[in-house]
């Protein structure tokens, strides 16, 4: 078993906050395929289309038959741990600060020998392990050797925690506590061990029974937060911004119009004001402080979650302006991800299909329940992935979009 992660000591406020230093992040273009798969929670290696030979390290042509037709394909990761070591003396400051660092050499059943970060519950060599991929603090895909069988507190491994954003003992801001999704997120993340959850409340004069019930929980605190109001965001950032470890931006406005069903731009403007400019205001208000605290102890700032929509990938014309606002937010989130990457803060985008709420009332099932969405957000944090597509509709749209985005556009606009 793995020693359970225990509550970090309270930080001495006089001490300097350790600056976040990323591990080595340079990669060849070929190797970025590993990162792209890990960002989606998958372990893929290049497989030669001509001779089926599995390749590693990533390359431009098959090491066996020289064919350039290499496809990234999911791997089961089983293999034999040949040797393991603890690196006590590292050349890089990131690993020096975290020494000793355990690594292993694994012969995959699929063929290649791989070097991995090694989970503390593995080994010693020789033994069977299962290799998986995660994103490291540089945002790049790396391989990790896991024990074949689940052990107690597996997620609490000190090195693995560097790759994930586990909510345990962390402080979380959920930007809108009035929606069913916001309330489900708060309850799920508390169940996952979060220490404190701030839930945002815009327009406090509008009562919400769900929010009142939520605020009775000891871990929950209500904060006034209106994403359409810059000064409200600045104020919230001033009071809690230096303590937020995980920010979940679930605030959204969803109207169900296309272009010609309604005159004027008011509804579309409101969608943009929350869904796009709201994200921009939050990023300016909370981003810098989170970046600065990304290496602040064992449970420092770690993740930023955006609730987008599968409609961000390709416009769903009956919800045309909403789709456009989510596409704008997706684009902005990529800029945010780039700015956060140097610090190690992970930007996680969630692309649900239709959520089972009033705005999707006319749509047929399956629709995503708030609880299911909340669960997928917490798993994304625990796995440290970048992109999540929760629910059957999202998965189906994603598959169609990956296959041919132009065909999907045709299908949606038929």
């Amino acid at each position, binding site marked *: 078993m793995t020693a359970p992660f225990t509550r970090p000591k309270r930080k001495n406020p006089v001490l300097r906050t350790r600056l976040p230093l990323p*591990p*080595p*992040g*340079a*990669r*060849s273009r*070929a*190797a970025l395929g590993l990162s792209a798969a890990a960002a989606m929670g998958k372990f893929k290696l290049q497989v030669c289309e001509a001779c089926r030979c599995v390749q*590693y*390290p*990533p390359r431009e042509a098959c*090491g066996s038959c020289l064919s350039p037709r290499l496809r990234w394909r999911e791997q089961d990761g089983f293999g034999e741990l*040949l*040797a*393991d*070591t*603890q*690196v*006590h*003396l*590292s*050349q*890089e400051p*990131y*690993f020096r600060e975290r020494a000793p*660092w*355990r*690594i292993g*050499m694994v*012969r995959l059943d699929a063929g290649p*020998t*791989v*070097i*991995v*970060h090694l989970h503390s519950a593995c080994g010693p*060599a*020789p033994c069977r392990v299962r290799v998986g991929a995660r994103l*490291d603090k*540089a945002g*790049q895909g*790396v*391989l990790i050797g896991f024990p074949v069988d689940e052990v107690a507190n597996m997620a609490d491994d000190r090195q693995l925690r560097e790759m994930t954003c586990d909510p345990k003992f962390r402080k979380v801001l959920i930007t809108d506590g009035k929606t069913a999704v916001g309330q489900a997120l708060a309850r799920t993340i508390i169940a996952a061990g979060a220490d404190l959850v701030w839930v945002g409340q815009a327009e406090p004069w509008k009562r919400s029974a769900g929010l009142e019930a939520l605020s009775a929980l000891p871990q929950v605190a209500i904060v006034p937060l209106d994403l359409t109001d810059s000064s409200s965001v600045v104020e919230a950032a001033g009071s809690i911004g230096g303590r937020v470890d995980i920010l979940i931006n679930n605030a959204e406005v969803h109207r169900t119009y296309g272009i010609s069903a309604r005159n004027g731009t008011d509804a579309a403007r409101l969608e943009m004001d929350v869904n796009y400019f709201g994200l921009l205001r939050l990023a300016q208000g909370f981003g810098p402080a989170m970046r600065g605290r990304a290496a602040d102890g064992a449970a420092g700032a770690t993740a930023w979650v955006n609730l987008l929509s599968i409609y961000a990938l390709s416009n769903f014309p009956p919800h045309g302006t909403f789709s456009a606002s989510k596409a704008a937010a997706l684009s902005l989130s990529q800029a945010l991800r780039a700015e956060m990457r140097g610090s190690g803060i992970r930007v996680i985008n969630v692309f649900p299909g239709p959520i089972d709420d009033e705005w999707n009332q006319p749509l047929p099932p399956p629709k995503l329940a708030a609880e299911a969405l909340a669960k997928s957000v917490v798993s994304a944090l625990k796995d440290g992935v970048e992109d999540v597509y929760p629910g059957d509709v999202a998965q189906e749209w994603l598959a169609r979009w990956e296959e041919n985005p132009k065909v999907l556009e045709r299908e949606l606009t038929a």
Partner: protein
Amino acid sequence: MVAHDDVVVTAPVTVPYSRYSVRNAHWFCAQALAGLLQSSGLPKSEIDGLCVGSFTLAPDSAIGLTQHLGVTVRWLDYLPLGGACGVVALRRALRAVQSGDAEVVACIGADTNHVDSFRQTLESFSVFARDAVFPYGSGGPNASFAFLTAYYMRLYGATREDFGKICIAQRDNALAYPNALFKKPLSMREYLEGRVIADPIHLFDCVMPCAGAEGFLVMSRRRAENLGLPYARVRSTCERHNAFPEDPIQMRGGWVLDRDRLYGSAGIEPCDVDFVQTYDDYPVMSAMQIEDLGFCEKGAAPEFIRRHTFTTEGSFPINTCGGQLSVGQAGCAAGFLGLVESIRQLSGRNLARPVPNARFGLAVGYGMITYDRGLCSAAAILSRADA
């Protein structure tokens, strides 16, 4: 045409090592060339071939160096092959002299070491290392050889004391060699208690990266004799790259494929070799080379080590000037160290303690861990002029 066994090596030169240097690699190359000229008495204009091994010349390579050093040559080679570049340089130069492409080839291995250059070299050493090794703890070669050493120990029952015995003997050899950076004797206790770097690699299993250069001249025997230069003969050489790619982890090098031919063309057996300069970046590699070059069976090196002594007067002298483990690892110069020491031993120009009555010496090259194993293996058998 010059006959193959009429090509000789002479003028062994070492530019003294230092832990760090503010000079660049060009400075070390210049000092090495100056040393070769001084040692041979030749004017610069007589050098018509140049072969350089270096990691730190960038953005230059051998060609920029010709202008830097003011040499006009008709044969030029650049070999950034690390631990194999000395033997490979010798092989190429030998063919050039043999075929008449050049008459006097200066072979130089040189690298500088600034305070941060070792990390930078590792970070950008190869595409595979950058993508698939360095992000995993950034332990550099220490971590890579920790895997090989751990696996070897488990498979063949080697102990840390076995490796320690080699390191201690080499240190003893180094005490008599003026260019060694390590000048204090090493005890088994100190070896065993050296701090852990990447287990089972401890401090005294590791070389110290440093700045320095080594060089020698390759020419015909007649030319050397006319110049009155003491020389060693080149009896046989081999090189092999990316041998046994199917092995899951490196427990043998390419020497296994080439040793029969190596000894065959030299006309000797392993038992005729009077000393071996192993490529000792880590002691486990010395053990593997002892096996792969035919001194004992695969896996029998631990027993071999327990049975033999390794100082210059020992039953199996290795790394007679101390090797990299005690002299220092000056980048590509480390690939020349064993050859230069062999030339000295076989041509009566000793700086270290001489191996009594040495007639045949074996110098080994190994290196270039671009991913999980050293890709190059090379070896050269040299002999005394009258052997």
